[in-house]
Structures are given as structure tokens and as C-alpha cells.
């Protein structure tokens, strides 16, 4: 297993290199620079600033310098926030995204799994149709639509919950962002689990287990659910991507100071290092999530072990 993980981590290196290179090339190919503001800078000051951020060096040199920094875990100074480095910004924003993201995934599993099982077991009944309808709705309605609607209902009309703001992570402030972020995943999980459980329920081993008189609950929990969870685990890797990019919208709606905000602001203000740093961080998170999903799959299914 350790060898398997090691090999996967080695494969991740070219992937991350591609991400870094793409981000770097894109930002340097773009017209305009971070210090092209409305007021014209005195040439000496401009030169001093460019020297400070190494912008006076050749592009390949800057690339190597940046790569060297990334390898050491240093994303460089922010162009926009003069006093903080990109690492500071990430350290500030990431806990917020992780809190919301993990809570949303947890909530999605908590609702989506029972919903999918129910739909598969009560196939072609009202339950199944209701679950399918909820699933289709969740897939079709993006978070930036549900989030303002939730705000309208629970914050503006009913006044039960705050409409936004981080509020030091108080539970009241977390409810709406987490619910809005989790809704599409409730839908995906329910759909996926319904389909895979239906497949498993028709297999010979489930029939055998039932034929020898095993209680239905045991058949379901011990024999049917375990293989049915495999596609779900595989989905959870890419789903992390969705939670990450989805949180950009959630942060915008609720005004949360997460890294998504820094990223969008950074892109608008040409804060190159912030944009590159956050993009690379996203890439690393995605690679890690996929790796984790593969490992869990291997643990669940011996056939997937290397």
C-alpha cells in the first residue's frame, strides 16, 4: 500500500508542474502588469518596485525563481497586500474554506446516502420519484442561485439567520453557506448511490445471501452496500474540486473572507503571485483528494489493490 501511495505521489509531480507552468505562462502572456495603475510612476520608483519583486529579470529566470520558491513551500509576496505574503493570505483564508467545505460534504453524505438507498430499495414508488426529483433539481440549480434564495427566505423574510459575514465561525453564520454548498452534492450522491445499489441488488451474491435465509438488513448492510459505495468513493475525489470552486461563489454571496475571495480579487487586481499560489493550492488539494479516494477504494475493494 505504501508503494502504491508513493507511486501515485510521483505521478502527481508532473501534474503539479503542468499546473504551475500553465498558470505562470498564462499570467506572463497577459497584456499589462500588476503595477500598471492609473497614476504614472516615476521611472526610478517603478524600477525599484520591479527589482523588489524580481520583475526586472528575464521570464525564464523568474520562472525558475518561482519554481524554487514553490518547492520550498514559499509562494512569494503578494503584489496587492504589500505587507503580507501569499502564504499569509492562504493561512488566513484556508481554514474558512476547509470548515465550510468539509461540513458541506459531511451534510451531503448524511442526507444523500439515505436518500439514495431509499430510492433504490423503494424503486419506482413515490419515494423513488421524489428522491429522483430532488436529485435532478439539486444538479440543475447551482449554488449561486440557491444561496441568494436561501438568504431571501431565511435571512430577509424570516430573519432567522444572518445574511452573511463570517462572524468568527459562529454556528448561526455557518448554516446557510454550508447548506447552499451541500445541496448539489446531496443530489449527486443520491443519484450515484441509487444507480450503483440497483446494480448490486441484481447480482448473484445478493440473491444467494437472501436464498440462504439471511435477514434482509444484514444482506443490505454487509453484502450490498459495501460494493455499492465504491463509485461514491471514486466520485468524492472530483467532488472536492466542486466544493473548492463552488466555495468561490459561496464566499462571494455570503461575503466570507476565504481564499476564493483572494483569488477573484487577485485576478481582478493582477496580483499574480496570489492567483498562482491559490491555483497551485487548488491543484494540490485536488491531487490529494483523488489520491485519498483511490486509497479508500483499494481498502474497500481488494481487486483495486496494486
Amino acid at each position, binding site marked *: 500500500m505504501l508503494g502504491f501511495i508513493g507511486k501515485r505521489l510521483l505521478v502527481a509531480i508532473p501534474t503539479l508542474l503542468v499546473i504551475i507552468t500553465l498558470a505562470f505562462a498564462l499570467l506572463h502572456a497577459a497584456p499589462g502588469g500588476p503595477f500598471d495603475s492609473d497614476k504614472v510612476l516615476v521611472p526610478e520608483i517603478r524600477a525599484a518596485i520591479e527589482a523588489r519583486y524580481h520583475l526586472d529579470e528575464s521570464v525564464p529566470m523568474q520562472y525558475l525563481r518561482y519554481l524554487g520558491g514553490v518547492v520550498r513551500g514559499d509562494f512569494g509576496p503578494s503584489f496587492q497586500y504589500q505587507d503580507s505574503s501569499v502564504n499569509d493570505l492562504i493561512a488566513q483564508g484556508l481554514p474558512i474554506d476547509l470548515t465550510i467545505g468539509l461540513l458541506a460534504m459531511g451534510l451531503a453524505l448524511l442526507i444523500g446516502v439515505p436518500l439514495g438507498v431509499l430510492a433504490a430499495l423503494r424503486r419506482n414508488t413515490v419515494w423513488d420519484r421524489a428522491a429522483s426529483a430532488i436529485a435532478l433539481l439539486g444538479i440543475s440549480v*447551482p449554488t449561486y442561485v440557491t444561496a441568494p434564495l436561501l438568504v431571501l427566505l431565511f435571512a430577509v423574510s424570516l430573519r432567522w439567520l444572518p445574511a452573511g459575514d463570517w462572524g468568527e465561525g459562529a454556528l448561526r453564520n455557518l448554516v446557510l453557506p454550508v447548506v447552499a454548498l451541500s445541496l448539489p452534492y446531496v443530489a449527486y450522491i443520491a443519484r450515484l448511490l441509487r444507480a450503483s445499489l440497483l446494480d448490486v441488488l441484481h447480482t448473484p451474491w445478493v440473491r444467494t445471501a437472501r436464498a440462504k435465509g439471511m435477514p434482509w438488513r444484514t444482506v443490505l448492510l454487509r453484502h450490498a452496500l459495501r460494493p455499492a459505495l465504491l463509485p461514491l468513493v471514486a466520485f468524492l475525489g472530483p467532488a472536492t474540486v466542486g466544493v473548492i470552486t463552488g466555495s468561490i461563489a459561496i464566499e462571494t454571496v455570503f461575503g466570507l473572507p476565504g481564499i476564493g475571495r483572494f483569488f477573484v480579487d487577485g*485576478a481582478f487586481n493582477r496580483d499574480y503571485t496570489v492567483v498562482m499560489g491559490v491555483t497551485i493550492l487548488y491543484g494540490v488539494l485536488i491531487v490529494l483528494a483523488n489520491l485519498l479516494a483511490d486509497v479508500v477504494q483499494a481498502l474497500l475493494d481488494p481487486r483495486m489493490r496494486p
Partner: protein
Amino acid sequence: MNSTPPLPRWSLLLLLTIVVLAVVVPWISPWTYYTPSWDELDLEPTFANGHWLGTDDLGRDLLVRLMWGCRISLLVAVAASLTSLFIGVLWGATAGYAGGRVDAWLMRTVDVLYAVPFIPFVIVLTVLFGRNIVLLFVAIGAVSWLDTARIVRGQTLALRQREFITAARVGGMSPAQIVRRHVLPNLAGIVAVYLTLTIPTVILVEAFLGYLGLGAQAPLTSLGVMIADGAAQLRSRPRLLICPALLLALLVLCCNRLGDALRDHFDPASGGGA
């Protein structure tokens, strides 16, 4: 699920209605989407004043703007989906037909690209290279071809084993000719299915970019831009949020229903549902 499920008639009808309205709106609407009307600010929806969904904070008819928003969203979605289709089919068919080392490299590239966080890249692209619509669909299309490439490759691999391909090869056709004359036509069904499934995804991406202020620029509008504008005036004019949000949901819902039904029809092996 053993028999072929019927096409979702209502979804098809609704979708057609929305598309037709979005196409003909410039010729049938009595108002424009961009001219502010200072004596008609914030009108409530009534039939009497002719503004069936009322007007927005600048006195522009909401229904007309909705249709224009739909028009832009659909335009971007279709163009971006076609771009992604073009790249995906070319990539997948080349990998599948060439096989061997070419296949391995092309598909490894796809695997690597799957781990790239695309939404950030699209955001950076649209911010840095100006916010025009052509760039928007090239950017979205260029990042959403991976699924198509995979599916097309799988289908091509299967097709390659068939007798009529061997016959064509023995008959002296070049690989490029075979791909064009025999492989691509046989991929049409499955590609059409994934086109209908790509379109709703792209609509959502476009709306997301519009929401961030990177999509259509005022006074032109799209569903995402309208949702963002509406969300900003949520307290005073909830109508401006609810209408575009409902329309977007309806549009994507119908596309998804149709795509699912078509997939079950053309590709029963995919198992329906997920």
C-alpha cells in the same frame, strides 16, 4: 429501465419554447433590453401596462431582458459546447484509432488535465484577456472537452475491431480517410448525447462567470449576470432575482432531462441515472 424510456415530452416542449423565444425576441419585443425608461422604474407586473413581469430599477422590461439573457446564455453554451466537441472528438478519435504510444500519451495528458482546477483558469483567462464573448466560449470550450475525449476514444477503440474498418484498410484507404468516412459517422449518436449533456454544464459555468462579473458586459446581459444583479437588490426587489434564477433552473433541468433520456436511448450500457 429495461424498455427504452420515453422522451420527456414536457421538458422537450419547454426547452423548445424557451429556445424559440430567445431566438425571436429581437423581432417580437416592443421594448429593447438596454433603453432605460425613467417614467417606468420598478413597475409591478401587470397585464395592463404591458410589462408582464414588471420592470427593473432602470425601467427596462424584465421579460424582454430575461429572453435576451437566455439568448446570450444559449449562444455561449452552444458555441462553447461545439468547441469542446471539436477538440474532444479530434483528440479521442486520434487516440483511439492510432492506439499504442500516441494513445498512451494523449490519454495521459487527459489524465493530467483532469487534475487541473479549471474554473480558476477560466477566471484568469477572462480577466486577463478582456471580457468578450468569443473568448468566453473558447475558454469554456477549451476546458470542458475531457469527458468527450474519453468517451470518443472508448467508442473508437471498439469500432476499430469491426470488420468494415478492416475492409476499408485492406481496400487501401488512408487512416485519415477511414476516421473521416467510417469512424466519425458512427460516433455521431453518442457524441450528440454528450453534446446535450455538455450544454447544461456550460450554461452553469457561463452563469457562474457572469455572476462574478466576467460574462456579458452591460448593457448586454445573460442569466448569470441577471442573477448577480438581482442578488444585489435582494431586499428591495426579490422579483429581479427569482425570475432569472427560476428560468436558469428550468433551462438546465430540461436540458439534463433530455440528455439523460437520450443517453438511455443511445447508450443503454451506461446504466441510466448516474
